[in-house]
């Protein structure tokens, strides 16, 4: 896939928001871009730290 190529070509930077709401929305965009340009295994591993901290099995 082009994922590695995209990673090398362009690093995405998170734009700081002027308000908490704007900052949150900027992070959502930043994270969506990360999900789009990285393998499922890579992003889900990070996402699972958030989710699994809530649900222990």
């Amino acid at each position, binding site marked *: 896939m082009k994922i590695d190529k995209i990673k090398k070509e362009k690093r995405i930077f998170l734009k700081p928001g002027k308000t908490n709401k704007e900052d949150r*929305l900027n992070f*959502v965009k930043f*994270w*969506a871009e990360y999900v789009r340009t990285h393998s*499922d*295994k890579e992003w889900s591993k990070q996402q*699972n730290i958030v989710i699994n*901290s*809530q649900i222990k*099995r």
Partner: protein
Amino acid sequence: MEYNKEKKEIITDRELSNLDKLVLKFIKILEKHVDYVIISGYVSILLGRSRATEDVDVFINKIHINVFSKLYDELINSGFWCLNAEKVKDIYSFLEDGLAVRFSEEGKPVPNFEVKFPKRDVDKETFNDFIIVKLNEGKLKISSLERQIAFKRYYLCSDKDIEDALHIEKTFKNQISFKEIERLKNIIERIKKDEKNKKFFTFSKQEI
């Protein structure tokens, strides 16, 4: 994630979270008895949104109480319980009244599954354009991405919902039909107007 719009299919080899495993366990039982579609927050989470949730919303097709009773028995035997009532008749009557009922693993109210019959025509439509998400350990039926975005952005409208909609829009950019979102937005605006009128008339009656 690979989204095939024609086939209405998303394939992902994402590492499953404990929540995904629980959802697969619940759905494996549910789908033996009734057709379903997962809607709302968990859809965004399944597709990568980085947040936790306390419930998973599920539409089920309207079924007879006898079928529901078999489903309920199997859920109970598999370690789930209903948070709203114990008797099948009571739980079913909530559903019939258009209310949602919640199931969780016994003794663990969070996270839970909020199950309901679709009431409005636009909710029933969810069964016509669902997407199948193929995971390493099973399949899940979710509402269309456009429906997800439209309801979050124009009906639910909380900060969390707007963020969920934005996540899907950005993750699947170029594959989203904005024409379809616009169609749903118009329906939602009519629903909100009706709800507002209904509230106003109920209030006026109380005044009298």
